[in-house]
């Protein structure tokens, strides 16, 4: 949390804190031994959105820039890999995954810089709308420049990574791959936050005029945040394209941007545990609802359904035909995961903003542990 934690004087500070992450990661790394493929695949998507969320968190959480066009960078990464490796691509370059990975990240980053350069002097909501427009332009470009992107027909048989003769192929392999990516991105993000750069971002977020008066180059640091966010988006795109093996423009709609934003916001802006929780709730949970295990579990609540239907029936006799019956309890998960999911999702965004704008797991306010003879540290409320 604090700029200096690893710097010299505070290794004694909080060992349990330092041990928390390795412990958590070790537990997560055991999951493939406990869960079936369906769950691991779900966890891959959760991991993917954690990566994307951590990237966007740099932009939204650290620097306070609302980016509604994050999907553009995700698409830049995915299509870099698609165009350069798919045999169906109009260029048919048949390049290696490991070569395209940095290239895709670089391309996405340059997209970020190119977009950021002119728009970053804009403030808050204007920036949000410009990025939203940019995201849509990119999608329309993917759809309509068929000579470059193969259009809506999409690109399939996209390259998968190999390490020597070992192919990353099964869901479990991919799970570890995305886990490593998330750890790297998380590490970079936390290092940046605890640096001079992170402080500059925070100052800009708090009051950008004053930050400038203190010598912080607003445009430069906003651009940096944007470029970092875009690179991570690009990384996510490359991984996604390779995992799924097939991409078409329909997968790069505004909805992706909104999902990632929601992951960041619902968990708590600026907070890494928040991103993890947000991704689990928004990306994992709707999928889990459709699982057989969930249906089996809910099936045990048939009695509850009978009871509720009894009440419904009572109403029905008063006003005939007014309300329908509840479906079988084992179907509840699926019903909820259908359209209701988005209705709940929308309501959740509003509720979070109104009731708990700092998110479910807010980033804990930095409490510096300098070894000074100390005033009691004021109770740190989150921003």
């Amino acid at each position, binding site marked *: 949390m604090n700029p200096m934690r690893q710097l010299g004087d505070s290794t004694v500070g909080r060992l349990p804190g330092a041990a928390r992450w390795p412990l958590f990661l070790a537990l997560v790394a055991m999951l493939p031994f406990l869960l079936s493929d369906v769950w691991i695949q779900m966890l891959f998507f959760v991991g993917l959105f954690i990566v994307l969320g951590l990237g966007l968190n740099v932009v939204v959480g650290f620097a306070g820039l609302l980016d509604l066009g994050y999907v553009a960078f995700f698409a830049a990464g995915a299509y870099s890999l698609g165009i350069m490796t798919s045999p169906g691509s109009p260029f048919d370059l048949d390049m290696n995954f490991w070569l395209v990975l940095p290239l895709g990240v670089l391309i996405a980053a340059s997209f970020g810089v190119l977009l950021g350069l002119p728009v970053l002097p804009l403030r808050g909501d204007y920036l949000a709308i410009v990025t*939203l*427009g940019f995201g849509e*332009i990119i999608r329309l470009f993917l759809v309509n420049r068929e000579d470059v992107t193969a259009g809506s027909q999409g690109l399939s048989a996209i390259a998968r990574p190999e390490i020597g003769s070992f192919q990353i192929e099964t869901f479990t392999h991919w799970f570890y791959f995305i886990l490593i990516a998330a750890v790297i991105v998380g590490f970079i993000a936390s290092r940046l936050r605890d640096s001079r750069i992170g402080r500059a971002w925070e100052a800009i977020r708090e009051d950008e005029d004053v930050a400038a008066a203190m010598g912080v180059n607003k445009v430069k640091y906003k651009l940096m945040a944007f470029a970092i966010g875009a690179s991570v988006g690009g990384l996510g795109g490359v991984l996604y394209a390779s995992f799924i093996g097939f991409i078409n423009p329909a997968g790069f709609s505004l909805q992706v941007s909104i999902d990632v934003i929601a992951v960041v916001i619902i968990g708590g802006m600026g907070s890494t545990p928040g991103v993890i929780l947000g991704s689990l709730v928004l990306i994992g949970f709707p999928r889990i609802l459709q699982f057989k295990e969930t249906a089996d579990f809910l099936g045990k609540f048939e009695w509850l359904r009978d009871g509720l239907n009894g009440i419904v029936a009572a109403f029905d006799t008063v006003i005939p035909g007014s309300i329908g019956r509840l479906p079988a309890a084992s179907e509840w998960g699926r019903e909820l995961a259908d359209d209701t999911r988005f209705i709940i999702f929308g309501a959740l965004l509003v509720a979070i903003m109104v009731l708990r704008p700092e998110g479910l797991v807010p980033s804990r306010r930095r409490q510096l542990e300098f070894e000074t003879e100390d005033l009691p540290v004021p109770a740190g409320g989150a921003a």
Partner: protein
Amino acid sequence: MPPVDAPHLALSVGFWSDQFVNGLTTGSLYALIALGYTMVYGVLKMINFSHGEVFMLGSFAGYGVLAAMGGDDISGVMVAVTILAALIGAMAVSAGTAAVVERIAYRPLRNAPRLAPLISAIGVSIFLQYLVLDQTDARAKFYPDIFPRGDFSAGPFDITYIQTFLIASSLAMMVFLYVIIQRTRMGRAIRAVAENPANASLMGVDVNRTIVMVFVLGAAMAGVAGVLHGLFFQTIRGSMGFLPGIKAFTAAVLGGIGSIPGAVAGGYALGLAETVGRELLNELPGVDLGNQWRDVIAFSLLVTILIFRPTGIFAERASSRA
């Protein structure tokens, strides 16, 4: 898709005048919706992202009224009566929704950081859209085809009755709104709050009530736009709000957000840019933009304007950008 027919089109006067009328028609709708954005922004400095959904609800409300009053079987004088009823119904539903949304999702956030209401608005937008999609099984609904067909000719211009009705009624609504803002007590209150809420409240203006009125007026305009959209294009569906919403926002920005005449001018400008503008681009050598690039034009315009002239192309004074 590569160009097919190299020298683009043998263009006639009739072609351009037709495209001009198309642009005006679409532009009228953008303008009507843009009013809601611009008023809310003028007063709260907030982008009401859910405004497109309010427009969509208006369209469905109008459909409900028309269907209830006989649908395709309406004829004669009843056509005028039903359309009027549909317009009123749509205004009521849109305005009511906006008032409720304001109370629940925006008012508690009035002093929150700027991004909070925007995100809340996105939430409302998703909520309303999927609520309607769920209720309609995501199917399109078709407005009854009751409007008399035929057209007026004036010089090179051919304007169908419905286009005339659409342009005329949207202009009427805009004038009506302008009069309310400029000439009534409520309008003065709105302008006072837009200028400075704290001062307005000191001078005895009920700020909360005024803000609700702003939402209600803007939503009523969107409701009218919803019915006109239904009557003209005939297809409506739960997901119809997003694109006109974002384009109307573009129109509002184009005209200088916060300014009511600006929103109207911006609406027409965007409508024309998408139709006449695209064809003009196609006149350039080597350019061949199909209809699919239309949204790209709108979005590029949005991005460009926001970058180079965030006060709008019609705004003469630099003010409302905070």
